[in-house]
């Protein structure tokens, strides 16, 4: 083994200093022959004979040298270097071709690398600086009879922590907002409530001060400490190196700053950049709904589990499920029907990974298409050139080059092209790595953070794509060389026919493939666009215009319930008094916003649920005039009044679906419903509206008066014709007059709220549209190339036709029909593929069939127009053929 290695090294060394080695060899062989001649002379031969005899005994000198050289160096590398040098020279000789080819490949490979870097950065390694993310899993609760995941309670997490042997640590994190006032500037900031083990468990070490100490996450409001982000430290605290130990008011509670997180650490929530962290002991200060650390029924936590090395998710899930089972029997009142579930990071249900997943999946398919189209284009270009280089190839074959050697040469040229393309592609990916953020609007003044990451995996993928492209690119001219016959190749062949098949079939089929791929993308874009339009046209069940929506975070400002109530009353009076305001109301949850409604098991007189079903219904806590302000019609009964307060009888308004399901068509007004153990009287039936997503099916839902179920964190809805900007200024004045430390959230129309909730669809439409356009352009270029080449190769035929009396219109028809025939082939193939593939869009489509004829039809029209445009110039050129000259040539 060592011997072979030594041999390899020596041969490698021999690649350098070839001149000297060559001289050495010459001299050695010369000395050999001289000695042989001398010996023969001494045997009595004449000088001539002695020389001839010596040469005969030696064998061929050049052959010997050739064998010797092969043994000396590494022939594979030597010829490759030769090919590379030659390839570069060939590419330099036709810079236009090379540039176009490299540009196509750059687009193709760049799009792939960029999308992969997003997938990598957002789904697989979403949290910069967090170590061993492959061992990190998201963890949520589940409830029997409820489709979606739920939060987890703090006591449950503690039990998991104690009982699970396969999990290294459970990390609690809950996103929340606060108003941060430093100096005279107050603004809304996002932070996380975390367990004390947070920084240690994710392997992030503060650059100043410390993380949280064990035990800082227990004791009610016992540890007012915070770790701030690098950006906050640099921006709001001006990089103060003496910051540790200083204090900052957060939600009106003085917190001591104990640490500064390192640069580039944004917390553990896909889509948002966290600005500060507080231990779970401070939960009550930041979360609505009071002190929850001892309440097993309060499921508010979002959490991650870090598995021990070597433990599979399935094993961990098994252990966790066993613990959950035990908790079910130990604490039936809070835990019956409750499970706990692990999720891979890229499926994390409580952050934006979940919403981005289908979009990224589609993007992946789309960019592969773009790459294929780009490759087909470059293949076509190469093919044109291989015609031009037939002569060169023929000559090389004739003087004895093996076909294998020629193929290697062609593949090397392909490799050079795709290596340049890959290099350019990585640059493109590098520039685009944060581009995904551009597609999402900044919300509430807080920037989204969607990091792309270019690491070795992205590099490996690009290299793989590059190799694949090379093979594809080399294949085309390689097929062509197979057909070179030495005798025929010297004949000139400018006598092609426009409609002729012959050699042109490879080029034509490449164009057909391009057309079909871009047709698929066009269909996809059409479907998504239609579905977006349908979503936009779906009424959410409330007025979207002339209603503005904002919030004042009173939890954040440290208000207690009583102060909050009087603040809300006063603010409401002031707002109603503003000119141009028709009505205003508070409500805890804004429909279609991020966050979750309260939910409760219910009981209804006369309704017996089927066994194994625990009816759980979501509800919203809303103030007087909510329905009038939002424009949700009441089918019967009344809406909440100011008099429905803590002292009055408990009441509720149910929606149509709930009325139909639990009262079976009977009018529920005056009937009772039990919510969280208390009976309420139904006073109204509201029309169904959309609650969490525009695309959701009608579901049971009800409303209770805010006063009877008070929450300090509430949205404010204002019915007015004023613009959001005008309203924001007026509101800020009123709020400031009441309390100088309060900031209002963004003021937006409900339409804006609806639009934001459909942003995944919008992003998908934008991306597929842009990439589909790119693909269409590439395909049109391909078609143009084929047609103009066909025309230039058939001047004689065209001239002949003209001489025989064909008019311009005949020639137009000839060229266009050929182009359209190719397009039709592509469209047919594309339609077949599209019918199979559009099912992939399923998740993003809304009330649109994947086989929607309108989408297919419009894709067809667009494709045809593009094809006509691509054929226009070649056809025009055909009509300009000079018959006399064409026939003479």
């Amino acid at each position, binding site marked *: 083994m060592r*011997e072979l290695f*030594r*041999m390899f090294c*020596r*041969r490698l060394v021999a690649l350098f200093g070839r001149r000297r080695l060559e001289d*050495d*060899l010459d*001299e*050695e*062989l010369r*000395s*050999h022959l*001289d*000695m*042989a001649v*001398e*010996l023969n002379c001494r045997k009595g031969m004449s000088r001539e004979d002695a020389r001839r005899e010596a040469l005969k*005994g*030696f*064998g*061929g*000198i050049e*052959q*010997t040298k050739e*064998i*010797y050289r*092969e*043994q*000396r160096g590494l022939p594979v590398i030597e010829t490759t270097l030769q090919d590379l040098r030659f390839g570069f020279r060939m590419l330099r000789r036709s810079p236009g071709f090379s540039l176009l080819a490299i540009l196509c490949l750059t687009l193709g490979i760049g799009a792939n690398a960029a999308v992969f870097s997003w997938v990598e950065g957002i789904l697989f390694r979403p949290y910069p600086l967090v170590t061993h993310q492959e061992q990190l899993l998201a963890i949520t609760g589940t409830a029997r009879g409820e489709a979606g995941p739920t939060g987890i309670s703090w006591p449950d997490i503690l039990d998991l922590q104690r009982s699970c042997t396969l999990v290294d640590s459970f990390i609690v994190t809950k996103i929340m907002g606060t108003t941060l006032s430093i100096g005279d500037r107050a603004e809304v900031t996002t932070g996380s409530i975390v367990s004390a083990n947070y920084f240690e468990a994710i392997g992030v070490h503060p650059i100043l001060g410390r993380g949280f100490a064990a035990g800082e996450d227990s004791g009610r409001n016992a540890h007012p400490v915070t770790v701030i982000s690098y950006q906050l430290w640099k921006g709001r605290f001006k990089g103060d190196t003496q910051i540790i130990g200083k204090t900052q008011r957060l939600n009106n509670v003085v917190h001591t700053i104990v640490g500064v997180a390192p640069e580039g650490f944004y917390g553990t929530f896909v889509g948002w950049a966290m600005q500060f962290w507080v231990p779970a002991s401070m939960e009550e200060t930041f979360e609505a709904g009071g002190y929850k650390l001892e309440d097993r029924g309060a499921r508010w936590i979002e959490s991650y589990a870090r598995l021990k090395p070597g433990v599979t998710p399935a094993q961990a899930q098994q252990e966790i499920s066993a613990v959950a089972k035990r908790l079910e029997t130990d604490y039936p009142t809070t835990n019956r029907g409750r499970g706990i579930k692990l999720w891979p990071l890229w499926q994390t249900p409580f952050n934006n990974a979940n919403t981005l997943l289908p979009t990224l999946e589609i993007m992946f398919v789309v960019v592969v298409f773009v790459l294929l189209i780009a490759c087909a284009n470059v293949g076509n270009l190469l093919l044109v050139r291989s015609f031009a280089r037939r002569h060169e190839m023929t000559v090389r074959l004739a003087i004895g080059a093996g076909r294998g050697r020629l193929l290697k040469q062609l593949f090397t040229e392909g490799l050079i092209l795709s290596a340049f393309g890959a290099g350019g592609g990585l640059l493109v990916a590098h520039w685009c790595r944060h581009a995904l953020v551009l597609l999402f609007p900044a919300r509430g003044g807080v920037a989204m953070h969607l990091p792309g990451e270019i690491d070795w995996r992205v590099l490996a993928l690009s290299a793989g794509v590059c190799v694949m492209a090379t093979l594809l690119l080399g294949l085309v001219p390689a097929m062509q060389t197979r057909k070179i016959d030495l005798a025929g190749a010297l004949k000139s062949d400018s006598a092609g026919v426009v409609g002729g098949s012959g050699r042109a079939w490879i080029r034509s089929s490449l164009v057909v493939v391009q057309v079909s791929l871009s047709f698929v993308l066009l269909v996809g874009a059409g479907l998504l666009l239609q579905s977006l339009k349908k979503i936009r046209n779906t009424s959410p069940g409330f007025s979207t215009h002339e209603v503005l929506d904002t919030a004042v975070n009173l939890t954040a400002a440290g208000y207690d319930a009583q102060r909050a109530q009087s603040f809300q009353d006063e603010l409401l009076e002031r707002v109603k008094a503003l000119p141009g305001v028709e009505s205003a109301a508070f409500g805890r949850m804004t429909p279609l916003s991020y966050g979750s409604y309260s939910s409760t098991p219910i009981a209804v007189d006369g309704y017996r649920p089927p066994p194994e079903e625990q009816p759980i219904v979501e509800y919203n806590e809303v103030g007087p005039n909510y329905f009038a302000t939002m424009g949700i019609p009441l089918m019967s009964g009344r809406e909440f009044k100011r008099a429905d307060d803590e002292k009055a009888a408990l009441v509720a308004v149910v929606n149509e679906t709930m009325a139909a399901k639990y009262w079976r068509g009977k009018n529920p007004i005056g009937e009772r419903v039990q919510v969280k153990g208390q009976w309420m009287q139904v006073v109204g039936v509201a029309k169904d509206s959309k609650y969490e997503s525009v695309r959701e099916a009608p579901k049971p839902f009800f409303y209770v008066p805010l006063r009877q179920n008070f929450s300090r964190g509430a949205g404010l809805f204002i019915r007015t014709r004023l613009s959001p900007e005008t309203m924001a200024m007026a509101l800020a004045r009123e709020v400031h007059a009441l309390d100088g430390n309060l900031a209002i959230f963004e003021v937006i129309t409900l339409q804006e709220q609806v639009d934001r909730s459909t942003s995944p669809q919008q992003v998908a439409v934008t991306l597929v549209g842009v990439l589909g356009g790119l693909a269409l352009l590439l395909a049109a270029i391909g078609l143009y190339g084929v047609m103009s080449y066909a025309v230039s190769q058939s001047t004689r035929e065209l001239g002949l036709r003209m001489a025989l009396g064909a008019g311009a219109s005949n020639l137009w028809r000839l060229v266009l029909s050929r182009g359209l025939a190719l397009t039709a082939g592509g469209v047919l193939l594309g339609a077949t593929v599209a019918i199979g593939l559009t099912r992939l869009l399923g998740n993003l489509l809304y009330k649109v069939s994947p086989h929607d004829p309108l989408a297919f039809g419009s894709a067809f029209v667009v494709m045809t127009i593009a094809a006509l445009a691509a054929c226009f110039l070649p056809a025009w050129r055909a009509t300009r053929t000079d018959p006399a000259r064409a026939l003479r040539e």
Partner: protein
Amino acid sequence: MPISRSEVLQGTLDLLVLKTLDSMGPMHGFGIALRIQQVSEDLLQLNQGTLYPALLRLEQRGWITSKWGVSENNRRAKYYSLVRAGRRQLEEEAENWGRMSAMINRVLRTS
């Protein structure tokens, strides 16, 4: 009947070269060729040229070394000599060869 060139296996040539250098000491290529022809009593007619790639191969493997010197007739020539690893290799190969030919002989005689 002389053995034709094609029948000289690569490994055999290596063995012959090693053996020659072992018994004769440092030699140049022409000398080795001459010596092999003499010893085989001209039964082995090899193209002398094929010797050189073989010498290179042996050198690359680290069994022989080469150095320019001056021949008995005052001619510059490259001299090859056996090194320790080469000697070891020779012993091994010779032994293999012996075993191999004995085996083949046995097979030929019995069948």
